[in-house]
């Protein structure tokens, strides 16, 4: 038996999709506030540019490529779901999850290098922002991957195929956040 909200819509937009956009609007405030704060401090503290020189641009660029590719597989999964091809949607969502895992593993290696070099979250304000922003983003990547796994399992059985699009919209937002994080933390130095 489905919840009432999934059987009707007052706005003309499917309830699940509207809910995802609400989540994204609230996440914009969260990440926007954090990135806005970082930009303010970055502009007020010119020494941040020197601190940022210790981030690895190539690792950041590789992670950006990984997330862009995972966005591609997520939207192709949506396309497969629209064609009622649950198996293909499942495979493409698995590729997206693979991208998420790659991203998190690369970030783990990167942070290990930085922490063992002495750059921790308490080193200075730049590194506080760096670990907070990238860490919050990584948490969203992990949460998205977990939810995506549940959606993928259902999609393989041909159930709730509309959720493929919903988790895809969330995933693209996570990608957009990284699109802005990358130049702020890895390029502006």
């Amino acid at each position, binding site marked *: 038996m489905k919840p009432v909200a999934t059987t009707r819509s007052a706005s003309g937009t499917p309830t699940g999709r509207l809910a995802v956009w609400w989540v994204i609007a609230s996440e914009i405030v969260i990440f926007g506030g954090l990135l806005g704060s970082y930009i303010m401090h970055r502009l007020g503290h010119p020494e941040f540019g020197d601190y940022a020189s210790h981030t690895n641009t190539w690792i950041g660029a590789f992670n950006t490529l990984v997330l862009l590719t995972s966005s591609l597989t997520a939207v192709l999964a949506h*396309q497969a779901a629209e064609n009622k091809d649950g198996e293909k949607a499942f495979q493409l969502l698995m590729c997206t999850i693979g991208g998420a895992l790659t991203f998190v593993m690369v970030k783990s290696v990167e942070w290990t290098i930085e922490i063992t070099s002495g750059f921790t979250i308490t080193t200075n304000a730049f590194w506080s922002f760096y670990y907070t922003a990238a860490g919050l983003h990584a948490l969203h990547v992990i949460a998205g991957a977990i939810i995506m796994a549940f959606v993928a399992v259902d999609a393989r059985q041909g159930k709730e195929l509309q959720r493929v699009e919903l988790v895809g919209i969330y995933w693209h937002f996570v990608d957009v956040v990284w699109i802005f994080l990358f130049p702020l933390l890895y390029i502006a130095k």
Partner: protein
Amino acid sequence: MATHNKTKKQSVKSPKSKKGHEHGPAEHGHGGHGEHGHTDYITIWKYLVMLLVASVVGPMFGIKVVTLLTAFGIAVVKAYLVIKHFMHLPVERKFVAYFVGTALIFMFLFYAGVSGDVMNHTGRNWSNVAAKQETERALKYIQEHPHGHHGDAEDETSSDH
């Protein structure tokens, strides 16, 4: 394929598909906007990758304006491509874009309201002594150690945030 794409584009723009009544909003919920050619997504991805390369290469020239344009200007373009072609925001009902845009406006309002106190270290009747001292200390350290020391990060440690 071109004809098929035209048909798909027409179905994307039709009012009926916009409201998503074809399949029932609760059951299917696609709003008719998902019918895009397979090539489109891969082409967009290629553009995104090319823009990524440009954003990495641009700052290597060391010219501030070029860095700003390639790093941040390209970020805006990439975000636009993802929002338009992957998230399909233009095909949603207008009010969705409005409340997402409202969240963005609040973000800019926050920046406008707070930035004066954070970016400046002195004001009309105030002075952020700690921030000023920290910036002076850090810049002096950087001047004395121009190449940086990976293992001496503790020298750069600051208690002031």
